[in-house]
């Protein structure tokens, strides 16, 4: 009886660990996105500081490609929105993972209790 519970416990524990890993992955991704967000914000501001006479280049691989100022501004804005959307998505993901982790924790706690009870019974019997 106790062994069975123990095996179950192990299984649940692994699941929980997996959930935790997912959570941390989402967290890392989200932080990366946040960094990009700030960066793009700065780019946007700096583009605003410049005027049309300056040429804007985009680095694509080893090549600096000339871009139109307005185009560049639009692109940066779009990228900003995209990043914001991604962040929101990751947030949701994190929340779900958190909820699942919470549930898993409860399951684990229950199993642990059962296990201990089983242990206790076993000791009593023996």
């Amino acid at each position, binding site marked *: 009886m106790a062994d069975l519970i123990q095996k179950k416990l192990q299984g649940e524990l692994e699941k929980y660990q997996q959930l935790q890993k997912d959570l941390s992955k989402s967290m890392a991704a989200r932080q990366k996105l946040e960094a990009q967000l700030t960066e*793009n914000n700065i780019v946007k501001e700096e583009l605003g500081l410049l005027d049309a006479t300056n040429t804007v280049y985009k680095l694509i691989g080893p090549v600096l490609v000339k871009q139109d100022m307005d185009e560049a501004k639009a692109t940066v804005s779009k990228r900003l929105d995209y990043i914001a959307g991604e962040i929101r998505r990751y947030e949701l993901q994190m929340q779900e993972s958190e909820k699942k982790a919470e549930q898993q924790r409860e399951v684990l706690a229950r199993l642990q209790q059962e296990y201990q009870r089983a242990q206790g019974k076993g000791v009593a019997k023996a």
Partner: protein
Amino acid sequence: YFHDAGFHPKIKYRLNLSSLAPLGPDRCSREFAKPREVNAECQWVENDYEALQERLNTLPDKLSYDIMVPFGPLAFMPGKLVHTNEVTVLLGDNWFSRCSAKQAMGLVEHRKKHVRKALEDLQKVMKNFESRIEFTEDLQKMSDAAGDIVDIREEAENDGTETKGKRRTAHKPHSKPKVSDVFEVHFQENGMDTKFKGYSQSEEELWARLEELERREEMLGEFDRTPDTIEANGEDTTSSEEEKEDKTDLNVVHGVEDSATQDNVQKEVTNSELFSGQVNGRSHYHSDDEDDLGVDHFVPTIFFSHTVEPKRVRINTGKNTTLKFSEKKEEAKRKRKNNNGNGHLVPELPNIKTPADIYRVFVDVVNGEYVPRKSILKSRSRENSVCSDTSESSAAEFEDRRGVLRSISYDEATYSDNSEGILEEEEEEGQEHLPKKLSTLSGTFEAFSGTVIEKEPLSPLIPHPSIAHPVLPTIPERKSEEVLSEASEETTKRISKFKAARMQQTN
């Protein structure tokens, strides 16, 4: 001629990671290092930008410069730096722009602003950390300095008494005594100097203890507050916490060396820290508050006790009239003369055997009708609330209240119908029941006072408090003495008819 104005995205990334989450002091030094690192890096970045600005300033001075151009990692070659005014700036995220030196300067300035802001944030974080560390150190110092600590002990009393006292003081929202109660309860647990002294200097343990105390305090805070308010415990604790924070200011000024930053810190700091931080200031704080609570202060050990101080109450007789006690007394006397056949007061108490009984017993009388009380612990300020008992609670008073209520409130006919059956039943039970009930009731009500007076139950007056059940609103918080006498008077009055009937029977 390619001049790259570097961008330091890394710094930003790290800044996002610098967390302001509260950390235990054991990790404080470690965590402190992180923002310190970032701080150092920010500084470095800013210096970089300054150098860059310098270069940008001087660069357009000449049309071309003779320089040694690096040729691979190991060689240089003489060359010329031309187009000195044209700069290609990395804007970030693989975007470049060609601009003049002056424009580049503008961009660099703009970036410096960002870096400076980050630096400021970091400074704030560091300051918080510092103050927290300082606080912890002070706490330890204080705990070691036994003399400063005021050991406040509260003898564990019954819930009822505590509740009662609290309820009274809690009529004024967030009154000091309430705060101090929580405070002191906390210290009752915390008040063992030895524990602090015995502690190793490690911050870790200290913080663990603080957190544990905080938890305990929260639990106690919960416990204390249930009778008083319907608020969530969290709200209460926060509100009292705020209160305490206010008071902490005083105490901070008094005892602790901490600067005003502590105020800021407190917001982030846990309850227990707050409490602990006020150790040496407590005596000041509590001198005001200990009026109703009977504490001797300004001694190394403060004994804190709750006393139920009975007060005179106005009683709502159900007709929206309030009689004062004196009047009641007279009434009681009158009634007693009328009703009491044997001149004894049987110490009958409402027989509460099941939880349902409680609710039957503690029933409000609202304008002659019985309204089940929302909470048996709530005081009925306007009703016949003996929420605060009178010190001179003679049996008469309560009886009177009862009597008055009874006479006004319930229909004697119905009552008699109800109770008749019970009466007969109880008659059979005999006297043995009485003492038992008495004792149980004393047990129930003992919480409210220190004295339990048991009176001899009278044989003819077997009718038990259970009679009271269907209709009688009994006043919950009372000294058992009063309860007993009251109950007796109840029965006396209530069963006046029956008594007479039975008397006839027995006779």
